[in-house]
């Protein structure tokens, strides 16, 4: 699943470490989220969206099929 975490994180001048602190996960989780190699739980997706001042729909690109 594609996402805009990296782009929005850069816009907010946040490092992966800082974003990880904000949402209460390890830095590696943010790294794999950005790479699209980890599908987060709804809770984490919500927390990341809140931390980046956006919505889940804006943050994650859901592809049909």
């Amino acid at each position, binding site marked *: 699943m594609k996402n805009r975490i990296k782009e929005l994180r850069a816009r907010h001048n946040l490092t992966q470490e800082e974003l*990880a*602190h904000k949402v*209460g*996960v*390890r*830095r*590696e*989780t943010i790294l*794999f989220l950005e*790479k699209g*190699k*980890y*599908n*987060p*739980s709804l*809770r*984490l997706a919500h927390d990341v969206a809140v931390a980046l001042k956006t919505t889940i729909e804006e943050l994650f690109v859901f592809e049909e099929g």
Partner: protein
Amino acid sequence: MKRLRLKERKKMTVMKISAGIFAALVVAFWLLILYVEMGYGPLSPVFFVTLIPLIPILVLLVFFVRRQDRAVKAGVPLRDERSEKIENRAGRYAMIGIVWFLLATAFYQLFMEELGLPEIPLRYFIWLMFFVILGLFAGFKLYFGRKGE
């Protein structure tokens, strides 16, 4: 956030105590086997091969606990949803691996005479199984940790 950190520090203390107990149990288990082996007569040099995995286990344990301790002090959670998923998956795969190991052991015992293979005492297999479980779990955890999910 401060409360969360305190919770993590408490968890870290529990982890340190658990790691200490685990290390003591591993050493005690090895000493027990040594004691039992000595009861069978002079020790075979093959027995000391069991020391080869024992030392890395203890070194890795210290390394792991120290790394986690540093992470907690830096404010990183001990476990998050991804690491929990990875641990669960690694545990499942390690269990499947141990079933295959037991099957291989059974075949070895069945065909060792026909194939002219040396007889390995059952207690060695049990000792080996302990390391296989630990090794498989650690290996799968590392693999899934690098893979992503």
